[in-house]
């Protein structure tokens, strides 16, 4: 038992012998939770939380399917879907723009609905199907929307493009691409600082009018 506490509390000498925090930890099954950070363990002790509640501080299991591949992961509750995709699954096509839900660069589909992955806690998409920009192409064959963005020059720097394309595909699927005005309204959650908007609208209109399956 004794040696396990080292991992939590750092230097043994920092801790007085009768420290109630130590007592708490010794009594608690938290000793097995090597993933706990010191700050959290101390906080749990201060609040006199029982181990059952304190255990919630640990990494929690989350199961999700990303672009057809099932993943069983263990994450901290504060990890966003965006960070999980980029940092843990290394799917870096989804971009972090503002990170506050204002730019749309992080747009992905969750069970078919487009959302801002930067404001989505990964824990909250447990059991759901995620599609990112990497999941649109079929092997080497680009999605029609990707083709159209290239053809119409729907970008300059390209940073907003994955989000724009994910949003554009959803825009057509939702039935909100029936006119230029409607496209502009329903694409307003995706900001392009290069100002490629007219070309983005053209790309979406071409795919819509082409009647291809998106």
């Amino acid at each position, binding site marked *: 038992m004794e040696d396990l506490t080292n991992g939590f509390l750092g230097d043994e000498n920092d801790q007085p012998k009768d420290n109630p925090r130590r007592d708490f930890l010794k009594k608690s099954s938290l000793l097995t939770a090597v993933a706990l950070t010191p700050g959290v363990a101390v906080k749990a002790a201060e609040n006199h939380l029982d181990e059952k509640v304190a255990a919630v501080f640990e990494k929690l299991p989350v199961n999700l399917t990303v672009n057809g591949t099932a993943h069983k992961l263990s994450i901290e509750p504060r990890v966003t879907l965006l960070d999980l995709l980029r940092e843990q699954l290394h799917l870096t096509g989804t971009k972090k723009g503002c990170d506050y839900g204002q730019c749309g660069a992080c747009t992905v589909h969750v069970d078919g609905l487009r959302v801002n992955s930067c404001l989505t*806690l990964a*824990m909250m998409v447990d059991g759901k199907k995620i599609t990112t920009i990497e999941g649109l192409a079929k092997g080497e064959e680009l999605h029609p929307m990707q083709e159209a963005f290239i053809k119409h020059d729907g970008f300059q720097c390209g940073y907003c493009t994955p989000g724009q394309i994910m949003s554009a595909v959803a825009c057509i699927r939702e039935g909100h691409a029936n006119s230029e005005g409607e496209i502009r309204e*329903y694409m307003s959650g995706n900001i392009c600082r290069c100002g490629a908007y007219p070309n983005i609208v053209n790309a979406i209109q071409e795919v819509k009018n082409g009647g291809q399956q998106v």
Partner: protein
Amino acid sequence: MKQFQYVRPSTQQSVLDAIAKPGTKIIAGGSNLVDLMKHGVMSPDKLVDINKLPLRQITPAKGSLHIGALALNSQVAEDKQVKEKFPLLSQALNAGASAQLRNMATVGGNMMQRTRCPYFYDVAMPCNKRVPNSGCGALEGFNRMHAIFGMSDKCIAVHPSDMAVAMAALDATVVIAGKKGQRRLPFTDFHRLPGNTPELDNNLAKDELILAVEIPDNNFAKHSYYLKVRDRASYAFALISVAAALDIDNGTIRAARLAMGGVAHKPWRLTAVENALIGKPATAASFEQAAQLAMQGAKGFKDNAFKLKLAPATLTEALKHAAGLA
């Protein structure tokens, strides 16, 4: 973002038990709360995810439409019954946020969203809403987006929701669950004016849960309009918004419902103006008169005095649209 615990109870009772404890906060769509947590404006110890609760349905009830608190903003905006019976609500929802955020945000969460006052969001600035008695940065600061009605010397922030403005105009009722059972609150009594306690946005107790919003059937579907004036054509908060609904019989107004957004700490319902419109002809002249009446008691600040002109103009325009004159 500070660390927090996360629980996902599957029953209403376990949610109520969880939220009764200090430091807890409900999360539904998270589109505002996660943003606030990233900014350090809110830092709950524990998030109670209520998405397991069966509160997503939109169902007709006797004489009303029952909208579950977890119905998504996009789901409500696109709902056939909503579009048919309450097109005003559908319009207001579609005027808010972006398509992505509407796919995340819920009805209950939309009601619970916090002000977008920049002094509330900036933790380095004083804000009586964020830290009671720390002062108000907006009073003497950059207050272009701020209130012209119902403010106090403690807070001049506005409520940011479009949906809530339509709900207030449509006489909706909020259904709330608490330890002692259910209670019902008129939507117009849900949000509060700041007074001396701007830290309280609304009258929902800490240990209560919004279950649904109910909208009574009405005769306004044919003549209603939501007009939102903002700094860009889409995806921006309102400078002024107006929910206008008229019941017109042979050119004469039989009943009216009016509420404004972007002007106060809560959706600003204009009951006196509604009453004044009864029996009047549905003409531009009547609407201009009504708009002047609506502005009684309005007060501008350094940067938002333009709202004193923009508000009546928006009101007139919305009424004209509702009446089919524009």
